């Protein structure tokens, strides 16, 4: 399989349904060979965006460029796109080989040459011996592999994945994620996937595009988006976050001081000083929980009440309550030496974290 990695550019892609705006001026540059995941809750416009790239939905506005040339008005069957659907969408009346050869037949490729390519594609997804079976005789994972072979055999300019592993159970989904990633890397095929599963986006994507209400909320590598969420929505949607509301109260050294209710003070490393109120996001894994040895004198620490400690194998989840009544969640890794730090519910504990873990986020 020899795909030429294509550069894809979306420019102000927009879709209205009557008065409702499904996608609002989505602009994005996708590098050749890159895997981009559109992530967001249902109704955020991610699926509509993908279907516009595939032209299964006609855009209301904006343009799609592949290698610099606009394909916005090229009909779907001339776009050279490979697409995977959540429901696999294999043709039930055709065998595995007939499914895979379908796209080659549509391109008028001679039977003998097409047959070789089908064989090659099925070997690629490790289904070499299943040519003559019907889709209904295969498991869900095998069916999606056939769909992948069918999409790849036409050597598409880009691959579009619509919740491709959503119908598989958890362990199979995880192994398919790794496999899909390896294959995509090896073929170097530009790929756009849609998912509502953040683990899937983190595992598979070079870059994650978080969408909300038809708009692009944040774009970045998985680590960037996870560690430096730009907005309260991203911090809450991708992983778990604690949030603090406070007022900016000058600077202390290199950091901005934010005062919250009940004497809780936070310091955030920031170059410019925002004025007025501020929202700060804090990942639970950054919070250390321990016995109260002394009264907290400084910022980024608080005495809270332990409500519940949930043992989760390699992690313990601590559910704390701040003096003001707000919840605080802390994840702590178990050391592996067999000792679980035991703390009784109802007891006061000291929660503290580093200044560098506080993130100023936009709250809108």
């Amino acid at each position: 399989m020899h795909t030429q990695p294509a550069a894809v550019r979306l420019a102000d892609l927009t879709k209205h349904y009557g008065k409702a705006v499904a996608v609002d001026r989505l602009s994005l540059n996708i590098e050749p060979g890159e895997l981009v995941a559109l992530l967001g809750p249902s109704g955020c416009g991610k699926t509509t965006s993908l279907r516009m790239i595939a032209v299964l939905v006609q855009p209301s506005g904006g343009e799609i460029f592949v290698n610099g040339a606009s394909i916005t008005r090229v009909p779907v069957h001339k776009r050279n796109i490979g697409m995977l659907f959540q429901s696999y969408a294999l043709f039930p009346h055709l065998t595995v080989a007939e499914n895979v050869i379908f796209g080659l037949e549509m391109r008028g490729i001679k039977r003998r040459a097409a047959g070789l390519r089908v064989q090659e594609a099925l070997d690629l997804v490790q289904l070499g011996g299943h040519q003559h079976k019907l889709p209904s005789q295969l498991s869900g994972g095998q069916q999606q592999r056939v769909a992948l072979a069918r999409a790849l055999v036409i050597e598409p300019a880009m691959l579009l994945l619509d919740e491709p592993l959503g119908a598989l159970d958890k362990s199979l989904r995880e192994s398919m994620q790794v496999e899909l990633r390896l294959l995509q890397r090896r073929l170097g095929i530009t790929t756009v996937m849609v998912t509502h599963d953040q683990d899937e986006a983190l595992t598979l994507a070079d870059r994650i595009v978080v969408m909300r209400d038809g708009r692009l909320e944040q774009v970045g590598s998985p680590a960037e988006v996870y560690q430096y969420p730009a907005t309260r929505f991203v911090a809450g949607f991708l992983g778990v976050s604690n949030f603090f509301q406070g007022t900016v109260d000058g600077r202390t050294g290199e950091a901005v001081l934010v005062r919250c209710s009940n004497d809780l003070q936070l310091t955030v490393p920031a170059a410019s000083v925002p004025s007025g109120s501020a929202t700060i996001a804090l990942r639970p894994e950054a919070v250390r929980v321990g016995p109260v040895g002394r009264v907290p004198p400084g910022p980024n620490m608080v005495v809270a009440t332990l409500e519940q400690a949930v043992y989760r194998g390699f992690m313990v989840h601590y559910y704390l309550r701040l003096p003001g009544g707000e919840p605080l969640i802390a994840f702590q890794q178990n050391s592996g030496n067999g000792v679980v730090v035991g703390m009784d519910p109802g007891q006061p504990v000291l929660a503290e974290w580093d200044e560098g873990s506080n993130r100023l986020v936009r709250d809108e």
Partner: protein
Amino acid sequence: MNGRSIATSAMLYTVTAATLVFIAAPLLVTMSLSVSDTQFVSFPPRGFTLAWYGKVLRDPDFQSALSFSLWLASFATFGALVLGLPAAFALVRFPVPGGAAIRSLLLSPLIFPVLVTGLGLLQLFSMLGWGSVPVNLLIAHILVTSPYVVRTVSASLMLADITLEEAARTLGASRWRTFRRVTLPQIAPGVAAGGLFAFMVSFDNYPVSMWLADAQNDPMPMFIYRKATGVFDPSVATVSTLLIGLAIVVVLILDRLVGLRRAMGM
């Protein structure tokens, strides 16, 4: 099993049995009369003879009525499929403006009294000066049979998976090839069921044909009616039995070919 459910089952079996009797009994009576060795229809039949079959099959009037009805039903079915299939496809797959109204209009021959439809068509054709009886009959039969195609095909299309069509489109299939290679195989049972309904409805249509037929173009139901009101010998029963046999054969063949049971929701 408590008393109530025994009563319920008893009722169910009684109603089913009664239904079967009322459907099957007339057919059985007709079949038994067709081999009766008597000059006139009388019940119970006496003796056994296949002479009536020989007489009927050699009757040139029967032959011409049968061939005319087969011709008419075949072309009416073809017409109903050619018109009904795209209509159903457009109504189900595309947001046609006024789609609901168009659907009601297309299905209206099912609800409208067929006798009135026939009379209306007769007046229309004579107003237009269209004198060709076979063509007029064909138009009328297509009109009354196409709703069956629209209905069964619509139902199959609604059940068919649209993502299969989308997958075919992304793989490079044009709309027409997508329809032929992906959609049609999925809705084949519905198409066959619609075609079967259309054929049968045309084949034994009386209320429309009676207005439009003439002596040279004599469909089977009119032939049977004239025979029954004229000399009432067992040959009428023989003709009927032959038609029952024909219907059973057609249904069995279609079931073998496309799984009619599935299409009719059985």
